[in-house]
């Protein structure tokens, strides 16, 4: 049984990569947007470009995983394709996980390209034992966040609009644009409630020369993953009760 579910997850992820993610809109949203954003900061202060790399990778993870997540579920619900997947001899949870993994693999592709390009061109030596787990857990968190927002709403535009709120809130409050310690205390509290803050912190630890463990950030992100994935599964099941 679990083999059927694993096969289904892999198939759905591969199909979504091909039909939705590896398309110009998703690629531009997932990669061009964070790169343009980072370049704007570089032009403002070229001497601190190295410091921007964790933020660039974090934003690439955020925008690439959520680039088409809201579309792949809502759109397929609307045209009935999601029902086709649910007719197969696999669980509803596996279908949702397949959708999440589509965003995960696309994000992994985008984040790997950005990480490799920046690390090689700037001769950075990140701690891979910290970097890889942080990237993987962050990809899962943000892909699940996209899946949750898409099962909360019936229409594609509703899910996309809703998703923009946490996305842009996170971009401004995660510590990349402005240091968290310099924010008013109430903004610091909000910042601590956002998963991208922990991704940025964890990635900074992985890129920092001083040894520091992003274990706490990893644990908090695992909590966010649970917070997003289980309600998303439950809500999708409820839609078909």
């Amino acid at each position, binding site marked *: 049984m679990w083999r059927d579910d694993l096969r289904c997850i892999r*198939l759905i992820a591969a199909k979504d990569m*091909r039909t939705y993610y590896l398309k110009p809109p998703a690629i531009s949203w997932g990669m061009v947007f964070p790169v343009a954003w980072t370049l704007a900061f570089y032009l403002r202060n070229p001497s601190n470009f190295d410091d921007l790399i964790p933020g660039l990778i974090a934003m690439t993870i955020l925008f690439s995983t959520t680039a088409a997540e809201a579309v792949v579920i809502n759109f397929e619900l609307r*045209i009935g*394709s999601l*029902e*086709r997947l649910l*007719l*197969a*001899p696999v669980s509803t949870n596996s279908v949702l996980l397949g959708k999440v993994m589509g965003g995960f693999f696309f994000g992994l592709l985008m984040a790997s390209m950005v990480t490799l390009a920046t690390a090689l061109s700037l001769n950075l030596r990140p701690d891979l034992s910290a970097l890889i787990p942080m990237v993987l857990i962050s990809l899962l968190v943000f892909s699940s966040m996209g899946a949750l927002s898409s099962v909360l709403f019936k229409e594609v535009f509703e899910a996309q609009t809703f998703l923009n709120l946490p996305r842009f809130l996170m971009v401004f409050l995660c510590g990349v644009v402005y240091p968290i310690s310099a924010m008013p205390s109430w903004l610091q509290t909000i910042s601590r409630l956002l998963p991208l803050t922990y991704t940025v912190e964890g990635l900074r630890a992985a890129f920092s020369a001083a040894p520091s463990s992003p274990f706490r950030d990893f644990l908090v992100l695992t909590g966010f993953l649970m917070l997003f994935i289980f309600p998303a599964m439950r809500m999708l099941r409820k839609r*078909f009760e």
Partner: protein
Amino acid sequence: MNAIVVRGLTKRFGSFTAVDGISFDVEEGELFGLLGPNGSGKTTTIRMLVGLSRPTEGGAKILGFDLSSGITEAKRGMGVVPDSSNLYDELSARENLLFTARLYGVAKDVREERADALLKAFGLFERRDDRFGTFSRGMKRALTIAAALVHDPKVLFLDEPTVGLDVVAARSLRNLISDLHHRGLTIILTTHYLVEADLLCDRIAVMVKGKIVRIDTPQGLKRHVEERSVIEVSFGQEASGHVGDLSARLPGAEVVFLDGMRAKIFGGDPSFVLEEIFEFSVDHDLGLSAINSIKPSLEDAFVRITGLSPTAMAREKGGR
């Protein structure tokens, strides 16, 4: 042996009962029709049977597997053609079939062979590498049926398979369904097209407002009205406003207006009915275009059983 056993199947949405305790059996190799107007509960019934919706009460067994505990096993033996063609526009015809086959775990060599065989059987082999999104509505429908067959199911659910198709495509699809039936596949067909049900089905369950009001063969359903005369009359102008008067003139007969100017009268002494129709048309200055004594059709049986106008039913679905 029964391929499908349904007992007391019920679906409620809040206070609305969409399917109300229906029970029926479908034998292996049978083509069983669920016939009824829009909103009668046909699609909700199918959705429960294929595991897309959970029954509020009652249950069913498909190929011996209980829906509540063995739905995954039951799904392996089911092929489902929903009322919309929902394959992936971005994938080619062949890729769509291969993707579906892989979802069901069909081995690589088998699925490639089967996909090509189905594309040939459905006349789509020449277009196998074209994207689904470029297909005509009839071709999309055919490929959706092919996708439902690619894992070699024992039971095929067809939900309104010819809705939205032109006459030629619909006829071609009916021939295809008939072929599948003759090959021994158990088929559940929902339709609101009376002619389609009459042509294809071994037995028909007539559904109205979530309930099955009768199950019989098409011949059996027609026999139900054959004992009574059926007269069809076309007036020269709008006459349905006077239905009360016409009914009052014909005690023991049943008057059903098919549209504003056309009515069918079931039962009564034919000579008396004809006489009264003439008088009625003169009294209301309606004129008479045509009057026929006709052999009862499935449509007449449907009208008699449900009390619904078949044209009103077709209009609801935008059908032919």
